[in-house]
């Protein structure tokens, strides 16, 4: 089934150590990427046949798995130490998804070990993996499920073979149990077998992964392995690390408009006299201030007087950007018959992870190391090498656990900036962005404009069209490797227009491989046009789908109403896949769909399918005051094909709900004269406890397809639909512009001064 090779310990990027005795590279079994033509089976006759869309058959996750195919045999390395502990340095990034727990579960399951015996850490950049060190597209579990099980099964097979050699008991009569190989009256701890198991003599051992129907741990709700460290304050994020002595604290004074550049520092001498200040450096993105503490760096940053060159969008504001999007969006053409249609727009939304962009860099004359939460560490290292004029392979990129991401850490802006500062000052530095800078100069989900139309003939929907115009989403991180990254001027204000560099193809590929309608609504068109504005954007949890599918879920409710049908019954009738119908039904039951609600209250429903998974949300909203709505209850159902850790999947669905409550009702950015007005959580209204429902029920469907689908991003689009539809029903309005409640209800921090500080009490 698989080829086993002795893993060459010398080639291990993390270095060798005497604790490692059993390390393999295992050729994983082929992961089938089948085109599923059977999707129309079981569809009600009345529904107009709808051709499968690209993302029905082959989605972004399939593409990423295919791109990683050539390096799949190197992906997962399992190590067993003499104490019988099993280690795996996962070449993915943990930012809260719980992937280290899920991967530990897969290993423990396959090796019949207690979960506590398995430790999963984060691997540094491993350039030999090429396109296979990406944490994105909800693809971690999909891409590591096969390789992890195979590697663990191989390790187990070697241990059993070693025990068979030692005891003379045939392999078939030996098994693993709680960290021991047992059988024939023998019991040997695996830690005592590691050296023998690593022997080349055992290279031909047959490896078979478990039949999933025999799983006892995988599929069982399991709490996070790293939770204790988190609740005791011991979990280390980048800012908590001191990996090298003498780290100077660095902050960057940034321009008054996006992509502005430094003309001159006007008070350098005065700043250098301030307490704790150790130096200044001009970098492409601003002026770095170095100090002993971040508090002092912040004082220095704010006291700086700098003159600036203009940025790239100085004249733009939300209104002008929306005008550009409207002008760009392709009109839908003349209506043929009865139509239900809507024109929607969505504001920019900051990623706003709790841990602002933070990175450590130690740059020497011709090599260096960076530490940061990085979802694509290979391209980060390679880009920094090019930027600093270093040879390929001279940068080490250490991946740290991140305090949230939501897409933000696909980019490595912090690592690049820290590396530039460290090189400029010749000292190791720890860089932290302030919250205000993270809001105003960090990345955001691109603003978008939507034209959606369903055409009705008789009692049926016969055509569905959706034209999207969006500010460009920056994809210059590519597939995580420099060959696919398009970033000659990445991180610099003088950026080349993205689509001019061929990036539009990338956008279209992602759009086409992620966005699909889950319903048979007749011939379906979904298309994307991107406006060329040089701003800081990036994929935001569920990428195009939150807005695109969110808007469609609103129209679906309106179509159902036009046809005199119940919104849930309509979705079940028109669902492309029986799995979808089952999830919709289950959610309607869980949330008691259709129950009587007092005036000002309403239920709302939303559904979404992507990455071989699907989810439905039913929320109840209190919108008695339409300006102060609150989602008070939610019922959520997810079908993941094969759930690995239902407890973690519930967390992701809960997070998706909070994202949707925030971005649908109140959270967005007002661009004004080339910079966001919002500067902190007091202004960017991400939900807090008072905005969250007091009652949430979540159900994870038992295995349906047998293979795990995507999880991290799945919830957002369905939840956006549910929240918007609940608001519409409660207030008898048709929400079209998001967030719905979006006044500038704050005094913005002064632009350009960087002044963000409230006088300490």
């Amino acid at each position: 089934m698989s080829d086993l090779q002795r893993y060459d310990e010398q080639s291990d990027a993390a270095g060798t150590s005497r604790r490692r005795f059993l390390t393999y590279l295992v050729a994983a079994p082929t992961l089938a990427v089948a085109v599923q033509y059977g999707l129309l089976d079981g569809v009600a006759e009345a529904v107009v046949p709808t051709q499968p869309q690209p993302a029905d058959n082959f989605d972004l996750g399939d593409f990423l798995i295919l791109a990683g195919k050539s390096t799949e045999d190197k992906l997962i390395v399992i190590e067993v130490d003499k104490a019988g502990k099993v280690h795996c340095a996962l070449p993915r990034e943990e930012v809260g998804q719980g992937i280290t727990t899920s991967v530990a579960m897969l290993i423990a399951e396959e090796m019949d070990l207690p979960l506590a015996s398995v430790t999963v850490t984060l691997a540094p950049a491993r350039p030999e993996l090429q396109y296979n060190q990406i944490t994105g597209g909800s693809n971690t579990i999909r891409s590591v499920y096969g390789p992890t099980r195979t590697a663990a099964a191989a390790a187990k097979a070697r241990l059993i073979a070693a025990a068979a050699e030692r005891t003379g008991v045939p392999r078939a009569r030996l098994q693993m149990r709680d960290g021991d190989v047992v059988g024939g009256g023998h019991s040997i701890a695996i830690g005592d077998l590691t050296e023998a198991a690593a022997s080349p003599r055992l290279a031909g051992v047959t490896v078979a992964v478990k039949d999933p129907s025999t799983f006892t741990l995988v599929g069982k709700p399991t709490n996070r392995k790293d939770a204790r460290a988190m609740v005791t304050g011991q979990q280390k994020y980048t800012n908590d690390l001191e990996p090298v002595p003498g780290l100077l604290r660095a902050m960057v004074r940034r321009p008054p408009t996006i992509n502005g550049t430094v003309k001159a520092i006007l008070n350098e001498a005065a700043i250098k006299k301030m307490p704790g200040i150790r130096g200044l450096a001009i970098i492409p993105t601003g002026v770095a201030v170095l100090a002993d503490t971040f508090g002092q760096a912040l004082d220095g940053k704010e006291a700086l007087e700098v003159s600036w060159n203009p940025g790239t969008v100085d004249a733009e504001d939300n209104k002008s950007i929306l005008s550009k999007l409207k002008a760009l969006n392709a009109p839908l053409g003349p209506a043929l018959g009865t139509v239900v249609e809507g024109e929607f727009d969505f504001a920019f939304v900051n990623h706003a992870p709790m841990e602002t962009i933070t990175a450590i860099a130690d740059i020497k004359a011709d090599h260096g190391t960076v530490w940061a939460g990085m979802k694509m560490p290979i391209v980060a290292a390679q880009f920094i090498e090019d930027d600093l004029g270093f040879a390929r392979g001279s940068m080490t990129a250490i991946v740290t656990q991140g305090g949230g991401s939501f897409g933000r850490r696909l980019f490595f802006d912090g690592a690049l900036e820290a590396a530039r500062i460290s090189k400029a000052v010749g000292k190791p530095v720890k860089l932290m962005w302030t919250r205000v800078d993270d809001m105003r100069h960090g990345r955001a989900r691109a603003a978008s404009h939507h034209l959606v139309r369903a055409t009705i003939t008789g009692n049926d929907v016969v055509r569905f069209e959706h034209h999207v115009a969006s500010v460009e989403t920056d994809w210059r991180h590519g597939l995580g490797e420099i060959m696919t990254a398009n970033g000659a001027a990445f991180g610099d204000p003088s950026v080349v227009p993205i689509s001019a560099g061929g990036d539009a193809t990338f956008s279209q590929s992602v759009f086409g491989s992620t966005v699909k309608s889950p319903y048979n609504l007749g011939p379906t068109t979904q298309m994307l046009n991107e406006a060329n504005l040089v701003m800081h954007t990036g994929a935001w949890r569920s990428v195009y789908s939150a807005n695109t599918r969110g808007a469609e879920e609103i129209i679906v409710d309106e179509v159902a109403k036009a046809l005199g049908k119940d919104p849930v019954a309509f979705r079940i009738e028109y669902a492309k896949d029986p799995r979808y119908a089952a999830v919709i039904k289950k959610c309607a039951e869980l949330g008691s769909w259709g129950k009587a609600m007092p005036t000002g209250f309403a239920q709302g429903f939303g559904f979404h399918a992507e990455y071989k998974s699907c989810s439905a949300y039913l929320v109840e909203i209190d919108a008695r005051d339409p300006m102060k709505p609150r989602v008070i209850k939610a019922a959520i159902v997810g079908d993941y094909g094969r759930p690995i850790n239902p407890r973690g999947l519930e967390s992701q669905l809960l997070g998706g709900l909070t994202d949707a409550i925030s971005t649908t009702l109140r959270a967005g950015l007002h661009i004004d004269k080339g910079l966001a007005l919002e500067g902190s959580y007091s202004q960017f209204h991400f939900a807090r406890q008072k905005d969250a429902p007091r009652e949430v029920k979540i159900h994870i469907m038992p295995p349906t397809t047998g293979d795990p689908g995507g999880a991290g991003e799945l919830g957002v689009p369905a939840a956006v639909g549910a929240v918007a539809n609940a608001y519409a029903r409660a207030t008898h309005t048709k929400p079209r512009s998001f967030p719905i409640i979006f006044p500038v209800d704050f005094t913005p921090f002064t632009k350009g001064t960087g002044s963000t500080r409230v006088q300490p009490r």
Partner: protein
Amino acid sequence: MPQYSFTLNGKTVQVDAPGDLSVLWALRDKLGVTGPKYGCGINVCKACTSHLDGKAFNPCVTNLRDVAGKQVTTIEGLADGDNLHPVQEAWLEQDVAQCGYCQPGQIMAAVALLKRTKNPTDEEIDAIENVCRCGSYFRIREAIKAAAAKMATPVAGPATGGANGIPDVAPEQLPATGLDAKTAAVGAAALGAAAVTALLRDDALAAED
């Protein structure tokens, strides 16, 4: 440079720094105590929430000089050695944390709330302003209620919580953090027993290499 002295997680510490340095950076950059997190610096995200003389406070907007002579408790000082505070236990049982970054502040806010009222209402829980960008609010609510129930009916075992029983730590047990020895020693002394145990465990592992 002025020197300020206060009690941190049961131990007296001294910091050489300007009086207007915020307590957050005194803790993190001078003392190496990193449980309280930076999230905004202006007391709107509450990620740094800790306790000052037993009440919730936000180190990011509190001057060092204003805690002189007072008792500061951070998340590191909440557990009694390896015995977690009931709120921490409830957090584990409800599997609250996702990225985990806001959770030290959330927990310290919850502990402060439960000190004020044994059975907080939903409205009182709503009043906790700490941002959780991962959106774990419902589980936070459930954990607070579970902790309240736990604290109302004490079970067998020593997990009573509170900043107590912090042992002395010898400087040689400290991690190499790049801080100077004196401040590192002071900082690590404030880390609490659980942290020290973890450090010792790491040392033991390192010794095997």
